[in-house]
């Protein structure tokens, strides 16, 4: 199986052709450096993304608290994760780095606050 990708390693944006056979990347072409091969392998075998979004917060300066996954999660879990987070409401105060959801949807990643928000009034 072939897959066409654009390398995200640098602004060159090399068009990569990746050959995947039996769950393994057997060939990468189109790249001009090592980054292309590494990216192609990761993207074809186990594409992951860091999810950054918000959850609702009560009694804070703003109604939203910015959060992220503590590490990249499988790309196909992003949507489920977002849906899940729609139902989360936290209450101020919150400290940056605080775990909001542990092991979100069994991805192995926590949802952590990326901002401290004090309690208002």
């Amino acid at each position, binding site marked *: 199986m072939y897959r066409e990708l654009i390398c995200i390693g640098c602004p060159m944006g090399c068009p990569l052709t990746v050959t995947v056979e039996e769950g393994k990347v057997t060939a990468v072409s189109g790249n001009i450096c090592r980054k292309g091969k590494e990216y192609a392998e990761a993207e074809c075998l186990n594409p992951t993304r860091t999810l950054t979004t918000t959850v609702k917060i009560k009694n804070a300066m703003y109604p939203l608290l910015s959060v992220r996954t503590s590490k990249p999660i499988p790309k196909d879990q992003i949507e489920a994760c977002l849906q*899940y987070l*729609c*139902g989360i409401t936290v209450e101020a105060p919150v400290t940056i780095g605080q775990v909001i959801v542990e092991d979100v949807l069994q991805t192995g990643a926590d949802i952590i606050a990326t901002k401290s928000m004090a309690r208002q009034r």
Partner: protein
Amino acid sequence: MYDVVVIGGGVIGCSIARELSRYALRVCVVEKEADVGCGTSKANSAIIHAGYDAAPGSLKAKLNVEGNPLFTELCQDLAVPFKRTGSIVVALDEKEVADLEALYERGRKNRVPGLRLLDQTALRALEPHISDQAVAALYAETAGIICPFTLTIALAENAYANGVEFFFNAEVKKVYALRPGAPRFLVKTDHLCLETRYIVNAAGVHADNISRLAGGDSFYLTPRRGEYCLLDKDQGSLARTVIFQVPTKMGKGVLVAPTIEGNLLIGPNAHNIEDKEDTGTTAAGLAEIIAGAKRALPSFDAQKTITSFAGLRAVPPQRDFLIYADSKVKGLIHAAGIESPGLTAAPAVAKLVREILAADGLKCKPKRNFNPQRPPVIRFSDLSFEEQSKLVRRDPSYGRIICRCETVTEGEIIAAIRRPLGARDLDGVKRRTRAGMGRCQGGFCSPRVMEILARELKLPLTQVTKQGGSSYLLAGPTKAPEETGKKGATNNGSL
């Protein structure tokens, strides 16, 4: 039961309403938009003309020359900034000098005071940035600049303070002329049915439709679109006076003018269109006005445009104002076809309409308690350091700057909302306070202004609009409740 229903809340309708508010009459204004001055009155050249332009003997010439001097007192009474900058018409070659002389002559016939022909030296002394091609100019000292929506809003506020009622979002759908004997008319909108003895038709480009609805005289007003560019204040000092070019058969041509707020305004072009709501600009049109303006003032930087817009002029068939009592329907008075110089003529139009009404049998008994003055509007940026200090101490909301570009405070925005006929939407605040009118065009301040509007009007933020109607600014909250509902109950308490 009204004595007079004025249809249209533009500068003409509001001038008439304010004029009628001097008398013991029951008057209302019905306006289809959410605010006054939303049609031609908000998108024009913002100029008080001297009056040499209109054909001698025309109503335009008469009302222009009568209207111009009225602005001194009117603007004082209404606390509206107005500046007699003077205007010039420049001749861009020797051949055009003859045209200047003809204009001068026309001005003399129209009894325009303060006209002078300037040679190149005098012209360059007056306008240092004028084109090298400019050889001479006709100078008119009585011309000036004004903010047309400030004027319209001020007229409306003063009329309101003197008892005139205003109905917004009220498009006239039907007019029933009743049989002889009062009341003569029923004016119907979606939500209102107003009985009245007289109708003043000041419906701008739609005045022909209103006449038709009322069964009155048949005339057709051609919407003629004019496009403008408003440039950054750092370009404003390039012109000291209103700079016209010699009119051609295509019209008065593109002008360049400082605005009362210190921006530079260029435009308009003139294109007849079909759709009476089509105030869209076009790429070709904007290019046309920039090129046109460059002929007289080559050095402005078009890249410094902060916004462009278009307005429609209601061009009447004979090219003169249609201000008269309808020949078929008694009690219907037209103030129609008010194209340029309509803004200048507005106070004189109002007086004429009042005279026509009186001649038609409306008893105009002066009110003793008429107050011609509008309380002044506080403009934080115009105050001295000491005045600003005092103001903020008295009311800390003047210490919070909302619009950075124009230095507009929260206090001013609250005042604009709480004033009589106060702002109800973002554009209403913008026209009253200039918040959002600067170079960032509301990028930073519109969320803050929306918050203040929501708080003052007790609306959810999602119901705050740009300009009334369906001009909502936000589609809804993120994390929509329905989505939340799916899982909400079970995952609370994850902390």
